[in-house]
């Protein structure tokens, strides 16, 4: 008996993006364009993460060095612009990069879910995909949630009972002395490093930067970058927990008083 095959004239598209509009909108509508935006915003966010780490290393110099660094950020670029204007420009740029990064990730996730509504019924055996590449959404989400806490803890201060505006050194040390905060900080940075170990390589591919001559170097760059961020950022909670970095004015002295004494 012959098998009855139903000839089908193809399948309906799962997605019909609107056509037309300005070139940049058309570009962003496509998944390739979204990946491109994700790569460009990823570079901006990587730059921030690296500069943030370099600035924070001043924690190991002295309280004055770190607090002066914070002051310098608010004061840049000297008298060329009113105070904090340039800092706000950077902040707005970062927020824009973050929003676009998350928005394109969301859009791509929806596209990908639709592309395979019925999954494999037997166990998949992945050959090349890495833990990092398969958990990008989750590590990204962890970093996003952590970022909210991090801002509440050390920028706005509403998650930090000992918060004093303009005294990042004490804020940071007080915060990290709480073991739970140190642990959350460490876990979030492990997630960030895993995220970067895939993202810092795949962004080149998304942008079309590819040459067999230096593809291996790009892969090593991503691991190296993620490693630097991991080691650098993990050192802060560890140093505070081990007591290597201490409060400038230990004991129950009110922080404000202590600041007055140290002249800041």
């Amino acid at each position: 008996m012959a098998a009855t095959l139903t000839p089908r004239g193809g399948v309906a598209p799962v997605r019909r993006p609107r056509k037309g509009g300005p070139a940049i909108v058309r570009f962003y509508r496509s998944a390739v364009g979204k990946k491109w935006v994700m790569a460009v915003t990823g570079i901006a966010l990587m730059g921030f993460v690296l500069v943030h780490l370099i600035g924070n290393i001043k924690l190991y110099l002295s309280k004055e060095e770190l607090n002066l660094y914070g002051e310098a950020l608010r004061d840049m670029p000297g008298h060329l612009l009113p105070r904090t204007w340039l800092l706000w420009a950077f902040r707005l740029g970062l927020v824009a990069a973050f929003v676009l990064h998350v928005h394109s990730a969301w859009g791509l996730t929806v596209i990908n879910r639709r592309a395979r509504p019925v999954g494999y019924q037997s166990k998949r055996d992945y050959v090349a995909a890495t833990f990092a590449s398969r958990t990008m959404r989750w590590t990204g989400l962890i970093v996003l949630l952590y970022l909210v806490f991090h801002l509440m803890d050390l920028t706005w201060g509403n998650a930090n009972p000992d918060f004093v505006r303009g005294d990042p050194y004490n804020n940071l040390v007080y915060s990290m002395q709480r073991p739970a905060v140190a642990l959350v900080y460490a876990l979030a940075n492990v997630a960030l490093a895993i995220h970067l170990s895939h993202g810092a390589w795949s962004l080149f591919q998304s942008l079309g930067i590819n040459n067999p001559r230096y593809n291996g170097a790009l892969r090593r760059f991503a691991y190296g970058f993620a490693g630097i961020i991991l080691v650098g950022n993990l050192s802060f909670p560890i140093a505070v927990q081990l007591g290597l970095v201490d409060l400038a004015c230990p004991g129950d002295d009110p922080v404000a008083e202590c600041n007055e004494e140290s002249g800041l």
Partner: protein
Amino acid sequence: MSDKQMRITLTAWRQDGPDAPGRFETYDVPGVSPDMSFLEMLDVVNERLQREGKEPIAFDHDCREGICGSCGMMINGQAHGPERGTATCQLHMRKFRDGDHVTIEPWRAAAFPVIRDLIVDRTALDRIIESGGYISAPTGGAPDANLIPIPKPVADAAMDAAACIGCGACVAACPNGAAQLFTAAKVQHLNLLPQGQAERWDRTINMVETMEEYFGSCTLHRECEAACPKSISIDFIALMNRDYAKAQLAQRRLVGQTFP
């Protein structure tokens, strides 16, 4: 030829039609020669099923020498099975051990609906080709050989891309159900060559956008590259991304004139 025989347990996806619910069925398969191809092993199972008056397992196949792209299925969770750079027809049973349990399942993607058992409809790949996988060339007398000089590395790269047999393993293996490797190969084997320049930018936009109507997006897991029976590199995906951005954002009157 070895006289050794293997016995394997085969669990196969059975689905009577496009809208029928599917299920796994398990078969005991004795007398498997290590020299058989995977499809020959399925032939043995099917002959027995027919003798028993049952429906044989439907699977796509044609040339059985790894160049037509008809065959393909998930074998133990890997597209085309455990051997790298081979289609299912050239996977030999010697890659399995006596007593192994082998599970086979059709490609899964929204754009690849199951027609029956292990056969899926891959028309969506044809839609991508129709939208730009061609060049316009004047017909007439055959041109002289080597009339258009092409550097050897360029010709090699174009040939590497052109090795794509359109089997759909890249889509099947991709955790996102993306057809990036297929489309990139089909875009770039023309975009790399002088003959492909006239339609280069329209081709890239049209093929990418048709692809995106049916398939997922690339997140660089590299599963496609590992599954590809022709071992096509994901480097072509980067080249396609570059050409797509250029086609969308660059000044077309200028990029059309230059060979970047």
